[in-house]
């Protein structure tokens, strides 16, 4: 198993560390030549979505990444990564996302919640986080809500969270993603 981690800007290193704890090999994608390596999945980390979108397009990564996701490559986006997957950006996931939905940094918070298919008491760290305003098609399934707002969703090979599992010690969300990756690799094999 080899997972590409988009490393243009943000907290990509934190995801690599979690995957290494799970014994999964990772590599960083900073430009097109990195992207062309073989991979079984992709992580879109937290950071600033405006910066990441701009760099994706300047570096010629936008279309290749979109095509790979639409072609079935398993992808996991956290925070800014969820924004990248949403309508109006990569647009591969049928979700409409509100950026900075909890306001400025004083609105950042930590809580625990239930995530469908993952379990209870999942730690959730929200940093100037977005949430999903609207699910745009029945293909997309809500996995978690906090205070009535959708904060995690899955659509086939695509997983998105408003919060940052890579900042907490709980490995369950990443394990869930790796199960998605394994399921796809079995299909391909």
């Amino acid at each position, binding site marked *: 198993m080899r997972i590409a981690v988009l*490393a*243009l*800007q*943000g*907290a*990509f*290193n*934190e995801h690599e560390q979690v995957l290494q704890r799970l014994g999964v090999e990772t590599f960083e994608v*900073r*430009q097109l030549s990195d992207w062309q390596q073989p991979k079984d999945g992709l992580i879109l980390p*937290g*950071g*600033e979505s*405006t*910066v990441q979108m*701009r*760099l994706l397009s*300047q*570096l010629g990564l936008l279309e290749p990444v979109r095509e790979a996701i639409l072609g079935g490559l398993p992808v996991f986006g956290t*925070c*800014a990564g969820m924004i990248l997957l949403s309508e109006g950006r990569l647009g591969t996931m049928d979700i409409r996302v509100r*950026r*900075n939905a909890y*306001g*400025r*940094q*004083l609105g*950042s*918070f*930590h809580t625990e919640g239930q995530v469908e298919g993952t379990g209870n008491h999942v730690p959730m*760290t929200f*940093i*100037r986080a977005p949430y999903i305003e609207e699910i745009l098609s029945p293909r997309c399934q809500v996995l978690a809500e906090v205070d009535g707002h959708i904060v995690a969703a899955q659509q086939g090979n695509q997983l998105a969270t408003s919060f*940052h599992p890579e*900042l907490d010690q709980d490995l369950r969300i990443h394990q869930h993603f790796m199960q998605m990756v394994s399921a796809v690799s079995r299909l391909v094999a």
Partner: protein
Amino acid sequence: MVNERQDLNRQLAQMLKGGVIMDVTTPEQARIAEEAGACAVMALERIPADIRAAGGVSRMSDPKMIRGIQEAVSIPVMAKCRIGHIAEAQILQAIEIDYIDESEVLSPADNIYHIDKTKFDVPFVCGAKNLGEALRRIAEGATMIRTKGEPGTGDVVQAVSHMRLMQSEIRRLVSMSDDELFEAAKQLQAPYELVRFVHENGKLPVVNFAAGGVATPADAALMMQLGAEGVFVGSGIFKSGNPRKRAAAIVQAVTNYQDAKLLAELSEDLGEAMVGINEQEIELLMAERGK
């Protein structure tokens, strides 16, 4: 020791990593910075080069001006308060700034004490020119560190010295035996727990950016290669011939700081860099403020 609010504030800094934070003085500049790929902006009335030129006492910016910039962009907005100026920091917290820079670029308000940053909910970034300063600021509650460099000069030499010194002091701590750490803490004038953290982890417990004198994509790449986790660019962008292009080039240089071919392309046709002055030519060493 670290409360939940401080955890969240450290984590916001983690989201800024691999990014460029740009000084802006107007909403228009803030929009240019955001479009060029800044991961945050620093709102201030005058950039360091102009503060230097103007002389006199330099204070926190007008909150109305800062609000104008908060409304202009969707990325985090930072602002500076004077070293030790608790009230300026309270005012910046009241307008919900995303990060306060307790900064040596402004005139210090207190020659001895820094702000007790653990008393605030908003995060603080502080400058440091060596490991001792960095750990003292972290003990006071700073959740992000940057090198001091020598702001407003366009001369990267001080930022390089500070980053190199910090990295070599970190490596020295890592190599020490447990019983040597107590003496190291004494010499660094820093809390033992933080010294121990650095010994065990080989890095600061918070994100560490480069700042002060970064003017070109090559400067930014240099700082990243020396171990910076991101870069502040102050006067270097809006004091140059083509701010839009230079800003975008520096953003790309930080992402691909090890790709010399790409850096060569990014360095082409950027127009005039800021003129710059050497450390020897200036009368005021801002890096000497606040130890």
